[in-house]
């Protein structure tokens, strides 16, 4: 609706409003308009945020609740009209489903394999970028490039690199006499390969966040530390790390959520929705996809989706709790 049409439609309800006691000092002519302006001023913030909440209700909350509803039924996509009540059976079945446990374990191990080195490397990278370097802006932009690459493109390239027969990585390790590794088939090998893609994509992103955090640490602290004779490494341990704590908590939480939802990289790594021939790198996200869109068991997929949701909430809660406890301990010192 255009502003003019609002004004035209406005007077009627506004006049009613002014009849029930409008503010003092308003003339008979501009009174209704002023009242309208006032009520608009009160309402406008809600109007401005309304689009987000409307969209959130339609595409966020409703699907969330509907997924919960669907997870209580047996629903197959091909015959989606016939819903059969299962209660919590979709959930209890997961406890005896060995594929679910495999996926959960894989999600955890791939999560650790990718998140820990990723954040450690990002921290080191940020520390280096924080020095005065030639072409600093260029380098800082460059570390973000992997993040700008699409998952699909990056994963396809990595899948080639990790190829068993013609892959570059096997060629290079072959030069130093290490036999060819079947990166797709071995459990550890495939998980390392998938983690590598994740690390490559996200390290630069986290490094920039750390860099921003580092730059908010007062420079005087470093100067004071330097005067006290602290080495660069000591400065990093005793000035940078404590100053970065909130930032680190943030990246840990974001990475945890990302790791729990890991999907694109394992899906495209070999193009297998089972996460390899023995499910060796199938994550929870991939297992949900396999159930829902590979086998069309929508009810079961919905149950997995909810389990993942709860899992993420719990993980984030634990993270936040630990962070708060540490912060309190620090404050108590």
């Amino acid at each position, binding site marked *: 609706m255009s502003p003019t049409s609002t004004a035209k439609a406005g007077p009627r309800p506004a006049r009613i409003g002014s009849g029930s006691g409008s503010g003092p000092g308003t003339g008979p002519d501009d009174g209704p308009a002023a009242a309208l302006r006032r009520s608009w001023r009160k309402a406008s913030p809600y109007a401005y945020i309304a689009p987000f909440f409307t969209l959130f209700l339609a595409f966020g909350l409703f699907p969330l609740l509907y997924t919960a509803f669907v997870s209580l039924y047996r629903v197959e996509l*091909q015959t989606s009209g016939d819903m059969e009540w299962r209660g919590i059976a979709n959930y209890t079945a997961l406890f005896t489903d060995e594929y679910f446990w495999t996926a959960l374990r894989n999600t955890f191990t791939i999560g650790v394999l990718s998140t820990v080195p990723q954040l450690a490397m990002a921290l080191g990278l940020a520390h280096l970028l924080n020095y005065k370097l030639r072409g600093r802006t260029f380098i800082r932009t460059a570390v973000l490039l992997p993040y700008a690459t699409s998952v699909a493109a990056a994963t396809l390239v990595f899948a080639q690199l990790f190829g068993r*027969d013609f892959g570059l990585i096997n060629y290079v390790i072959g030069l130093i006499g290490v036999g060819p590794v079947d990166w797709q088939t071995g459990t550890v090998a495939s998980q390392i390969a998938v983690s590598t893609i994740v690390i490559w994509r996200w390290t630069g992103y986290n490094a920039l966040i750390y860099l921003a955090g580092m730059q908010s640490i007062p420079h005087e602290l470093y100067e004071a530390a330097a005067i006290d004779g602290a080495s660069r490494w000591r400065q990093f341990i005793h000035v940078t790390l404590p100053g970065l704590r909130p930032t680190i908590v943030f990246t840990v939480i974001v990475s945890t959520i990302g790791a729990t939802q890991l999907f694109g990289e394992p899906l495209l790594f*070999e193009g297998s929705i089972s996460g390899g021939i023995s499910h060796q790198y199938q994550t929870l996200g991939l297992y949900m996809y396999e159930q829902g*869109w590979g*086998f069309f068991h929508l009810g079961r997929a919905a149950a997995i989706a909810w389990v993942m949701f709860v899992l993420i909430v719990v993980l984030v809660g634990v993270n936040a709790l630990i962070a708060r406890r540490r912060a309190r301990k620090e404050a108590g010192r």
Partner: protein
Amino acid sequence: MPIARAAKRATARLGAVVLTGALLAACGSGASPDSSDGAGEEVTLTVDLFGSFGFKEAGLYEEYQKLHPGVTIKQSDTQDEADYWKSLQTRLAGGGGLADVQGVEVGRIASVTQQQSDKFQDLKAFGADKLKGQFAEAKWSAATTKDGKVLGLGTDVGPEAMCFRTDLFQQAGLPTDREELAKKWSTWDGYLELGKEYKKKAPAQSAWLDSVGSLYGVMIGQEKERYYNAAGEMIYETNPAVKTAWDTSVKAAEAGLSAKLDQWSPQWNQAFAAGSFATIPCPAWMLCYVKGQAGASGQGKWDVAKLPGGAGNWGGSYLAIPRAAKHKEEAYKLIEWLTAPEQQAKVFQKQGNFPSSTGAIAKISDAVDPYFSGAPIGRIFGDAAKESPVQVLGVHDQNVMQQLTNALSEVERKGVSSDKAWETAKKGVANVTG
């Protein structure tokens, strides 16, 4: 299109999108209809397919539009059949966004006739009955429901043969004459024996066979009853035919005859040109795939011989009309024309998809393929098509096959014992169907 099986894997799909996007775009701009004639009623027919049915490539849409002024055909295409099927299922469930003509792969046709017969148009309403004699019996009966509704017209079938590399055979001191080979490997045991001979003198890094998955797939294509019996019960656990195909594949894996490649994976694709394997079981639609992967340098190095162990069929597709289609009558006219013998023969000449229409098979019986050393593909595949068993199809055919080949890959690539892999396969199937 069975080639879409090829693209079962997401990697293939994304690879195609990323790498050949420009190529596809070029193909897509081919049919620009000028419907300014205005003669009769203006109709835009939408056709939604997967893989490559070859209609556009063979110029059939343009021809049809010339024959029927006022009809405009718009085709949309998904490279990966699994993706296509997902989106079709979603739209059928929602009842919207369906095209006038939808393609259906043979591995899915049982799902259509058994689970979704109320969502597709019975083509008998338009007089499809009179076409029955025109199609191979197996093709026709698979798209017919128990109560006699006809839900799709067949486009192509997948008669099976064996493709082999003459240059590698020569290097290993094996005969390269396709007739002589057909005699030597008249049985699967003969094929494996020849493989062991090949292995002794073969060039380095070259295996006899691409993957035990393809061996299993082509063997199971020779059987009438596979995972389901005629009554619709799942019988794969006790079916001796499945057991035989499984055991032969395990034997090939344990003898180290396979290149341990995962079908449809990027590595498998690379191996065609690299000469990593000397033979590959090939349904008719695989010829086009081999040409695409092995490229121009493979010209004349390949040949086609009769399949060991008798005739079989792997793959093939249908055209169906959803109930929710806008122009059902016009759509029927189109699919009747597209699946007529003349048109099927044109698609075979252009694309290699083997016709499902018996009339078309007669038309192409003397076709030869220069890429495959001038092999008489019209005769080889024609004979196979005639002798192929009428297969019993089930709702979960595709999924059961996937689980079994996955388990076979464990034997092939990880050295898992046959018994253990079989247990894995059973668990996998239970997970799919449960």
